[in-house]
């Protein structure tokens, strides 16, 4: 697969703050590429540098194999952007907004009309097409924001946290829509600090912190980078210190937390972890309620790599 975007050794400083610290990324055609990181990690700065909106101090960015400048109109024709902040005209209706932005890419009137209607269908705003942005709810406004960015069916779509402040129903619709766009041939770069979203839709993920890419790969590959293989949670009361010590000494278990009601165990990757745990509880006549296991999440990956929660 060819690279749609190549970022080499990118450095961006805001006065004394290093926003991007020698960032290297390659985004391949056909991917849904996730940029995952907490607020202030450099996701939006990366996007703005790619779009040549921001000056950067060092490094190189190639889009479709060429540097993208403010007047690279041919390359820009194949790019769609969904910004973090809603970027529409307040005084134009839903239809007028989409028609205007689509018209900046597509000159043919008939073709544009078809594309605008398809975009309205895609974000399910048909019954709101005559409404002004101020009359729309937060979720509908986000959908309009997306429609304005993708109506011209670009080859590359950059989405910068498009689901911020969106209700769960709208969020699911948006995520499903992104998958559909990808199926229709668009390469997508998706930034978010919601790991669930990134896990749900992205084929490859870069975890960014302090402007550096600290991990890169598919979600399976990222999860394989850490020690946690399984998390076991047990509802139980009155465990003694001695019992906790014995649990910690069980095979494959490397971390135990207990708050008097909930026992949380982190274990390495192995087939018998849960069975071993239940055997120990029964053997020692320890009463317990619910028991459940979880596979590691990207948050666990982030936690292990950086020592802090993703939403810090």
């Amino acid at each position: 697969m060819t690279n749609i975007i190549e970022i080499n050794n990118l450095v961006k400083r805001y006065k004394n703050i290093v926003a991007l610290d020698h960032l290297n990324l390659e985004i391949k055609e056909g991917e849904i590429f996730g940029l995952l990181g907490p607020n202030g990690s450099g996701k939006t700065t990366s996007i703005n540098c790619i779009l040549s909106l921001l000056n950067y101090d060092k490094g190189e960015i190639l889009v479709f194999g060429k540097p993208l400048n403010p007047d690279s109109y041919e390359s820009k024709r194949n790019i769609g952007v969904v910004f973090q902040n809603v970027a529409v005209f307040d005084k134009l209706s839903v239809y007028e907004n989409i028609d205007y932005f689509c018209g900046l890419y597509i000159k043919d009137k008939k073709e544009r009309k078809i594309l605008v209607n398809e975009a309205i269908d895609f974000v399910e705003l048909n019954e709101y097409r005559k409404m002004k942005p101020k009359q729309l709810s937060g979720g509908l406004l986000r959908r309009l924001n997306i429609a304005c960015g993708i109506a011209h069916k670009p080859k590359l779509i950059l989405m910068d946290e498009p689901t911020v402040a969106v209700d769960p129903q709208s969020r699911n619709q948006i995520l499903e829509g992104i998958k559909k766009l990808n199926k229709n041939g668009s390469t997508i770069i998706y930034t978010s600090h919601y790991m669930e979203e990134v896990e749900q839709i992205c084929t490859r993920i870069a975890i960014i912190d302090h402007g550096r890419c600290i991990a890169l790969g598919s979600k399976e590959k990222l999860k394989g980078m850490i020690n946690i293989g399984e998390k076991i949670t047990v509802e139980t009361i009155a465990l003694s210190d001695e019992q906790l010590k014995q649990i910690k000494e069980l095979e494959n278990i490397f971390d135990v937390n207990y708050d008097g009601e909930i026992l949380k165990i982190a274990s390495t990757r192995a087939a018998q972890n849960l069975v071993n745990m239940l055997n120990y509880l029964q053997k020692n006549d320890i009463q317990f309620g619910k028991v459940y296991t979880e596979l590691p999440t990207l948050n666990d990956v982030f936690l292990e790599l950086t020592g802090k929660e993703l939403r810090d």
Partner: protein
Amino acid sequence: MKLSLKYSFLNTIREFSVTFWCGVFPLILATLFYLSFGAYLNNDEFEPVNTGVVIESSDSEFLEVLESIDGEYINTKEYNLDDAKDALGKGDINGYYIVSEDISLKVPSEGVSASILSGILSSYEKNITLIKDILANNPENLDEALAAMEGSEIGVNDVSLSGKVISVNNQFFYALIAMACLYGNFLGTFAINNIQADLSPLGMRRSVTPTHKMQVILSEFITNVSIHFFNLIVLIIYIKLLGVVLGGNIGLILIVCLAGAVNGVALGMLIGVSCKKSANFKTGISLAVSMSLSFLAGLMFAGMKGVVQVKAPIVNLINPAALISDTFYSMTVFDSMERFTMDIAILLAETVVMLLISFIIVRRERYDSI
């Protein structure tokens, strides 16, 4: 381009604040001006000034002067000193002269009436001094000098070489039209706020589209000039309905409005692209610039333009408000089109320069932060 024009137009005319400041506010100001000095708008509506005369010495030549202009510029009535004070206090008279060996004038405050009475007295004193001087040095020329004085008139008008006159108060309206033209800079700044990526998300989105920046600026410019040109035509019609003499034919007035509109919008665009502050800050700058230029052109004080002409004539030569105001003045007063043409040419040249600078700044713009 057509699509950009259409939606830029719709977006702008639906924006209440822009419509108010550029369309409605000048109309309100024109109404206030009319209510303030509507009676003095045109010279043919001049009313004689009610004047008291306190005679303490009846052999003064000044009494003859007053008698000669009584009913034309002033209406005189004789009082004793106390009654004159009372009459002035009640507003029955606008001022009174005390005629003794020296002539003195009492007026309550400055104003048109006070200026007229003061002008009469100073003219008389100047003539007396002149006569005394002629008697002392050239007595043989006295008859000729008196004949010349007899022919001279006391007036409050500016009189041009072509003999056309213009009321000082009309100049307030000319400055108002100039100010309204410059208010086009709100439109220009508003447009730039929606183009520049560091000012609005909308600017970011437009910056990443494959549309040539010149096209974006031009479509915004054409839209806003059209809207503002319409605003100005409405203002001109309204001012004409108020009875203000604007001079010139309708074609020339439309040329002034168009030149003023393009200059005002281009000025706003230049402010928008060159000032690296927030949108609200830029709006404040636009207001300050238009008010300052209008002040220098005589919006708040009619004599200001003259003061600037004496102290720093270059300012009047480049100040768009002064140039716009001057086009109306020259249309009214002068037969020749030379001054009018020069004013319009400078306005248009400034517009081209401002647009080019705006385009150069915006064309390849990347930002240090957004």
